[in-house]
């Protein structure tokens, strides 16, 4: 039975990874899961300099999910290189670093600092809804997405995954734009912009007023978008959005995802990633699936 998948020339032992921002750099979950089991760890977004993030409250629970507006708090690329990458190198897994910025030069600065680092793939965050400049601005306009993708491809030493926003009119157009601009893979979906108001205090639940919705509540939207994106491009698609268990992960694979990521559900079940891997293997065994490739895009018309 083969669970290996290849994304932009990088072979993962299985398609299961962590969604950026929900797993730190793995340190916080090391007590719960064997990181060696994971196909890849996708780190929290990292920027050229340390970012303090937004005011609190930064999260609010919603029906079947949550809103977050962390605002990409991160320690900056220098400390990240000194501390987080060496930590992850201790494990037999692939390292995907999520890159954040306000401007193209800021993204490029991070990408360049990572060029000589033992990192397998870069994931470019052009879809964070919670920062004032940059982030989602690059992911909602095809021309801006085209420009940043080309610029990053010019500087990146590792293959580039563009992480797309669901807050767009046509995900197929954005996926195609990223591919045409040279992206090696795309990942989706980032969170969906939402809002919650506390009727007792009559205040916004989040200090930032809006936040990104994630969790099982968004899964059908994510599956639909992964399907549409996978139909539109020939580069690999990494699917995520509300994955809680192996059944959910398999659904994304069938929709056309080559890789899948567990995000918010790590908070509900810290063992979720490894349970997805075990469940996938069990499904393959029970259904006579020899190679996970048989599942990818395997939905019947």
């Amino acid at each position, binding site marked *: 039975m083969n669970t290996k998948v290849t994304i932009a020339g990088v072979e993962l032992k299985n398609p299961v990874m962590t969604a950026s921002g929900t797993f730190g750099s793995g340190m916080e979950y090391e*007590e719960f899961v064997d990181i060696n089991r994971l196909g890849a760890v996708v780190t929290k977004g990292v920027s050229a300099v340390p970012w303090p993030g937004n005011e*609190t409250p930064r*999260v609010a629970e919603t029906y079947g999910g949550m809103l977050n507006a962390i605002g990409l708090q991160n320690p900056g690329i220098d400390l990240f290189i000194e501390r987080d990458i060496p930590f992850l190198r201790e494990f037999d897994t692939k390292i995907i670093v999520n890159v954040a910025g306000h401007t193209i030069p800021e993204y490029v600065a991070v990408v360049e600092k990572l060029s000589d680092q033992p990192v397998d793939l870069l994931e470019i965050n052009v879809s964070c809804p919670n920062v004032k400049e940059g982030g989602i601005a690059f992911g909602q306009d095809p021309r801006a997405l085209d420009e940043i993708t080309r610029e990053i491809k010019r500087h990146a030493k590792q293959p580039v995954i563009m992480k797309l926003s669901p807050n767009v009119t046509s995900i197929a157009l954005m996926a195609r734009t990223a591919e045409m601009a040279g992206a090696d893979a795309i990942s989706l979906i980032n969170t969906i912009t939402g809002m919650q108001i506390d009727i007792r205090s009559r205040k916004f639940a989040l200090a930032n007023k809006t936040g990104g919705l994630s969790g099982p509540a968004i899964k059908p939207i994510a599956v639909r978008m992964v399907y549409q994106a996978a139909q539109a491009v020939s580069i690999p698609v990494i699917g995520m959005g509300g994955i809680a268990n192996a059944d959910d992960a398999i659904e994304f694979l069938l929709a056309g995802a080559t890789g899948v990521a567990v995000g918010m559900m790590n908070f*509900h079940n810290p063992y979720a990633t490894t349970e997805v891997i075990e469940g996938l293997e069990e499904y393959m065994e029970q259904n006579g699936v020899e190679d996970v490739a048989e599942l990818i895009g395997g939905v019947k018309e």
Partner: protein
Amino acid sequence: MVRRKKTIGRVVSQTMLAEDILDLRLETFLASDVMPGQFVGVYPAGADALLPRPISVCDADREAHVLRLVYRLTGRGTTEFALKQPGEVLEMIGPLGNGFPVEEAAGKRVLLIGGGIGIPPLYFTASLLSPEGTREYTGGRSGKASSITSVLGYKNIQTFMAPQFAEITDLYLATEDGSAGYGGTDLDALFEIGRRREGSETVADIIFACGPSPMLKAVKEYALIQGVPAYLSLEERMACGVGACLACVCKTRNVDAHSNVHNARVCTDGPVFPAREVVL
């Protein structure tokens, strides 16, 4: 450090201590690992509410593996917990957070300041440090205080847990409506104690506090004036509870070693912080 895990707790008993204040005892192995000031995350069962609810540990019986949680009914999650009957099971994650540095209180005059639902977590601390208490720790963090004074602030006459604190500490009560003890806040009561004990320079050598943020702010100022080290247990909206999501941050005076900015994680670097290190 004790390894954190997601496990289960079986309800031993549940009673109502005051309006919307529940006293839940759970049989769980987490009870043997938990330290004063730490908390657990308790999960609602429904798929609609997925995040663990952070609840401070009120007390733990290490031998019987019984964890005591005193919590306030506030919404979807706690309403579900309040309906749990003996024998029923709750999923939980823990032990979470750092806890009070009880080892620093050995041989000292300890002042506990609690407000509202911030009162229960101080009980575990008091019971382990109390010179009258018979409890000892496992894990080497032992040592009794020379005396414990507790100042507890409530809204009204429903002074839950006050009798228990009275058994093991020198207790001063304050109620906002003046229906019991000093009329006013904890700090009003504290200044009254100061007046009464005229002659002695300070009331305490070390302060542990837990309560609403205006109270903690006042405690921080009080400690500064008195020149006494204070440790504050903070509260913030959380998601993961294990330090990954960066939701529950507080502002710090210095650049935090982990975050590399002026933010610390309440769930992991706290919930207890030295008063001088946090900006309230």
